[in-house]
Each structure stands twice: as C-alpha cells, then as structure tokens.
C-alpha cells in the first residue's frame, strides 16, 4: 500500500461545547491528494471535524497540522483559503452567479475578470450563459456547482465538502461526483467529503473515516466499509445506527 503524506493530521484533538464533548479524542490523518470520505450517524461530529480543519473552530486540546504545520500558525483568513469548504446547502449571496463567483476575490479587494469566471463555470460543467443569471433562480444541482466553483477560485490545496449531494437527484449527484473526481485528478486537490451515502463513499473515496459519537472508530481504505472490523461500524453500515 502506498503511504501518502498527510494533508491534515489530527493529534489527540478534542472539541466540546459547554463542557459537553462533541468530538475527540481523535488522532488520524487525511492523506494528501486523495479523496477521503467522512461517514457516520447524524450527530457524530462530522461537520465539527470539517470546521476544525479550516479553522472555523479550534480544538479545546490537541493539535491539528496542515501540511505538517500547526493550524494555529496560519492567519485565519489564509488557512480558510488554503482549506476551502463547500457548505451543505450551498448558500448564495444576493445577486447573479457572477457575484457569487467573484465573492472570494472581492473579499480580498480583487476583481474576477469575466472570461475567467466563464472558464470556472465551464470547469464545473455549466455554460457561460449562467454567468448573469440570478443565483436564486438556480436548481439545487446548479447551486452546488456554483458553490464548488466559488470554493475553487481561492485555489485551495484542500477542499472540504459537507454533504453537498444529499439534496440532489441521482443524475445531479453523479455529475457532482465525477466533477469532484476530476478536480482531484486535475489539480491534485485533497478532498475531504462528508456523505451519508455509503455506496458513494466506497465508489468515490480512496480512504474513509468512520465517526461515531465524536470518536474516530475506523479509518483506512474505503473498502473497509464493505466488511467493518468494529461492531459499531458494522451496525452503522447495516443501518442500525442513525
């Protein structure tokens, strides 16, 4: 088995709210340049793990290394550009598709040239005709594509995806899956993807993390989901834990 450098490494990471443990202690890695899926029952702390990765949250104890460097040594804004995140319901700001694509650069007081915006749109499988369409008029799948393109514009090394296909129909889901695989292959981007669809986790992911009640129960090649070693993971895979 090839050993990959960790893009993100958790070392004994714990996070709690009002003294109630949410995740941890977690020790584990997300391999660089690979697609890792994050699976587990709802309330397992999956979104919290993603937010810890891009610094929207900080651990109470333990350390998170990004490319071997402690997350706390990064400026919060730099860390969030390096570790981009596409949110679950793909929130759009008011305005057109262009306004949404230009947002990451406008936050840095820069402008996005229109031809660049069109090429980003085409990159995620949407034609340039969408550029001046109102964001509120997009379908769920189109919104997700715009959201992914918007995250890509920061040229992040690592992309976090929070259940981005959960509200989509099968056809749109397949399109997003092949899009993410293409991004991973084309740019060598490390992908960390929360999904509740185990079939998707096995087919798309190279690697998987199984979280239950805030703990990292099993980790390894995605195919571990076909024959889990741990009893709790076995029950989760059978659909007995939700």
């Amino acid at each position, binding site marked *: 088995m090839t050993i990959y450098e960790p893009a993100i490494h958790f070392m004994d990471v714990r996070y709690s709210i009002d003294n109630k443990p949410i995740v941890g202690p977690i020790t584990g890695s997300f391999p660089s340049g690979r697609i890792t899926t994050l699976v587990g029952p709802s309330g397992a702390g*999956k979104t919290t793990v993603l937010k810890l990765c891009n610094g929207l*949250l900080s651990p109470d104890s333990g350390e998170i290394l990004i490319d071997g460097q402690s997350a706390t040594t990064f400026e919060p*804004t730099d860390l*969030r550009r390096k570790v*981009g*995140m596409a949110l679950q319901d793909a*929130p759009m700001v008011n305005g057109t598709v262009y306004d949404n694509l230009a947002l990451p650069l406008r936050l840095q007081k820069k402008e996005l040239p229109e031809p660049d915006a069109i090429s980003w749109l085409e990159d995620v499988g949407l034609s340039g005709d969408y550029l001046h369409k109102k964001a509120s008029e997009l379908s769920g799948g189109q919104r997700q594509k715009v959201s992914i393109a918007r995250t890509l514009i*920061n040229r992040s090394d690592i992309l976090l995806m929070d259940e981005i296909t959960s509200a989509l129909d099968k056809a749109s889901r397949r399109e997003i899956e092949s899009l993410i695989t293409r991004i991973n292959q084309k740019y060598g981007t490390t992908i960390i993807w929360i999904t509740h669809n185990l079939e998707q986790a096995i087919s798309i992911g190279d690697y998987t993390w199984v979280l239950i009640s805030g703990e990292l129960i099993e980790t390894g090649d995605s195919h571990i989901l076909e024959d889990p070693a741990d009893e709790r993971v076995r029950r989760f895979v059978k659909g007995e834990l939700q």
Partner: protein
Amino acid sequence: MSPLALFLTLIFVLIPLVLSKTLNLGLERDTIIATVRSITQLFAVGYILKFVFDSDGYLYILLMIALMIFAAVHNASKKGKAIPGILWKITVTIVVVELLTQAILLGFGIVPATAQYIIPISGMVVGNSMVLSILFLNRFTAELEANQNRTELILSLGGTPKQAVHTQLTDSIKASTIPTIESQKTMGLVQLPGMMSGQIIAGADPVQAVQFQLLILFLLLTTAVVSSILLGFLSYPSLFNERMQLIRQKND
C-alpha cells in the same frame, strides 16, 4: 390649569375603566396601576425639575442627565443579552450621542445653556437613543440568527468578521433608522408632534413652536443614525474571537 380642571381629567380614566368592567376586558387593574404611576412619576419629575431650574446649578443638571442615561441603559440592555458586554456598549453609545448633540447645541449657541433647555432636550435625545438601540439590537440579533449560513460562508471563503456580518449590520442600521426618517416625512400632515402641541397649548407662538420642533426633529435624525451605527460597530467584534470564529456556533 385649575386643580378642579386637573381633577376632571380623571373622567378620561373613568371611561376605559367602566368600558373594561362592562365588557369584561380585564384592563381595570393595569389601567389603575398606569394611572397611579403616571401621576406620581410625572409629579415627582415636575417637582425635581422645578427644584433644578430654581437652583440653576450644573451639578444637578449633570445628575439628572446621569439618571436618565442610567435608566435608558438599564432598559435597552435587556434586549441585547446575546451580545457580550452589551451594557457598556449601550452606555458608550448613549453618552456619545448626548455629548455630541449637546456640544453642537451649546457650542454653536443654538439653545441657551440653562437647565430649562438642556434637560428636556437631553431627555428626548437619551430616550430616542434608547429606543433606537433597542430597535437596532432586535433587528441585528434576528439578522445574525437568520443569516448564520451567510456569515459562515464568508468566513469559510477567507473573509474577515467585518465582511462576514457587513450585510446584516447595514441592513439592521437601515431598518432601525427608517422609521425616524419616514415619520418626519408626514410630520405636521397627520398629527402635530407632542412637544409642539404642548407649547401651543401652553400659549407659545405656533411659528416659534414649529421652529423648536424642527430643531428636535433634526436632532433626533442625528440621534437615530449615530446611535445605531455606533452600537453596530461596537457590537459586531464581540461576536467573534481572535481566531475570527463565531463565538456562538450551532453544531451538526
């Protein structure tokens, strides 16, 4: 007004009491409490003002204003408990608005520096600043709650806390000041402002009453806009920590 005439005004309290009793509205107790409280509070403030005007000492004027600010801050801070340190933020807002408006009024000699002008005008400025603070806080906390996704989106794209709440902040500032601006547009058409009516009834020249009312209207415009902007810019940083994270977070 003669004591008998004043006594007869209680007829206007008696009418709602009788109606409430007849129709079982259950308003009698609150009506009586409201009546007793307004009589005692207004007479108390009347005698205090008479004492302050007669003594004409700046210490008493300052004490009166301090008391007004204390009561206003106490009242407004109940609305912004979700925002850390809201008590001192409202205090700073109201004190700055009061100092700014009095500095302009007295500095340019727009009104004389006597208790007769300073205290009632301060009362209007402080009271208005309090109401605006409450309106702003109500709106801002609701906007933050409703747009937490948007705040998170901007932060996750590498935006600063200010960029993350900018829209919610400006929307709340606009929403809280619009009623002040709108009410000025119909001023004098629908109803005569209370202060102007009072002056006219007390025998003042209507044109002079209008001049003072205009002064108050413009003053309240500044009060409204400065209060909500100042409170807004004092409030938003305390929603984030030094790692630019939202302090109150929902979880999955």
